């Protein structure tokens, strides 16, 4: 287990939105849906667009604005092409009004 890093206050990730933070060497998007947080690589595996910039959240999936790749925010799995590689996902938790993300190994 890596050390969790505090990335934001809870109110900085509003319901139905995704916001990106730098965690270690990664750009990590944190999204909130129905109150739950999801953390995943902000970089689309197809052409490296930032998912948090214009990405559309639908349920627990996010669609890249550039070329329509859609990923599960929960597992990183590709749900719609053109992407073929899954997103990395990260462990995220909320403690005392702060959002914590565990950096990649």
């Amino acid at each position, binding site marked *: 287990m890596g050390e969790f890093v505090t990335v934001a206050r809870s109110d900085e990730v509003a319901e139905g939105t995704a916001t990106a933070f730098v965690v270690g060497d990664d750009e990590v998007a944190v999204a909130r849906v129905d109150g739950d947080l999801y953390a995943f690589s902000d970089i689309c595996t197809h*052409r490296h667009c930032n998912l948090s910039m*214009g990405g*559309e959240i639908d349920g627990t999936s996010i*669609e890249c*604005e550039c*070329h*329509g790749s859609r990923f599960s925010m929960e597992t990183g799995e590709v749900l719609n*092409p*053109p992407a*073929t590689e899954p997103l990395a996902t990260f462990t995220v938790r909320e403690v005392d009004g702060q959002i914590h993300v565990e950096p990649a190994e």
Partner: protein
Amino acid sequence: MTPRTFTIVGASLAGATAAATLRDEGFDGRIVLIGGEERLPYERPGLSKGFLRGEEQVDDLLVRPPSWYEEQDIDLRLGVMAERLDPSARSIELSDGDPVGFDAALIATGARNRRLPVPGIDLDGVLDLRTVADAETIRRRAADAGRIAVVGMGFIGAEVSASLRTTGVDVTVVEPFETPMYRALGAQAGQVVAQIHADHGVKMRLGESVDRFEGDGALRAVVTELGEEIEAQVAVVGVGVQPNAEIWPLELAADGGIPVGPDLQSEIPGVFAAGDVASHDHPFFGRIRVEHFDNAIKMGEAAARNMLGASRVFDDPHWFWSDQYDVQIQTVGRADDDARIVMRGALEDRSCCWFALNEQGVLRSATSIAWPRDVRRAIKLVQAQARPDPEALADPGVDLRTLMPEGGG
């Protein structure tokens, strides 16, 4: 029992995607993937965009990483041309080597660039764009010359102009229509695209055709039908394509493609076509041949599933985009000639989305210029053949996802 052989002709986006879908769906027979180019399947959109600007490398374009083909046990035959499909022997004759038999086959041979039938087309410096090698040549020679002529302002001409202009190359366009991208966008929106290019310093001779290319061995000038000479050592010609359908032993469709039914299967049982070469009997749009990226993926996937017996109608409404400077243009579907157009935003603002409805009020297409999200949101509406309220379509405050018919989606 002998394992089945599925042969895919065309190591293309559609072909490689089909191979991947076959494996994803559990097909463990033999997959032969035949490609004319000596390259692993790659995506072409970047060739007129990031790759042409020098921002992307070949590895960025690959449909699957090199190791994938071995991991998935794909019998890859690159640098080999498929010459003819023999329907009675159920085999593909190759330019090199023994014929390859098949239990099911997919033809995904794409298209090639149309040649402009004018004098001087063979001069050194008269180029076109289809392959990685073409893009590398254009990039290098445009940079050396510092200026180019672009012949044809469709998707390829418009994107090549934007990309090279962005890298500082002087660009002059010759286009027979009065506006760029006329076939895709029509005159009014094309006018906006013309303004965007003019703002970036592209010179355009609109409503003018090329009479000839002049030079002694190497290009010196492009001469228009009005007699105007455009000095250039390099010209890029983008005047449409024709399908690579020579392999097909039966009659072709009127659009030059291989005729396939709603399920992408041809009149030869077990033989399918996908991508640019497929003349598809689309359930909403009638017979249509689409030359775009997303369609090649979606057709490749659908054809693979139907090769395995899914028997599903392919009703994807076709989505595509074009990037020029910082402007993205998107379209889903296809507008009828007599369509009613509903505008969201304003063309004058160069940021808008418009919708085409048919006589019955069914949404047939959506197109946007520098207007995020709404075309993607309209995909499901077009696919559901929805009849959204035109006032709601025109109102930017209405989320298109709320216009889905009951029980749809």
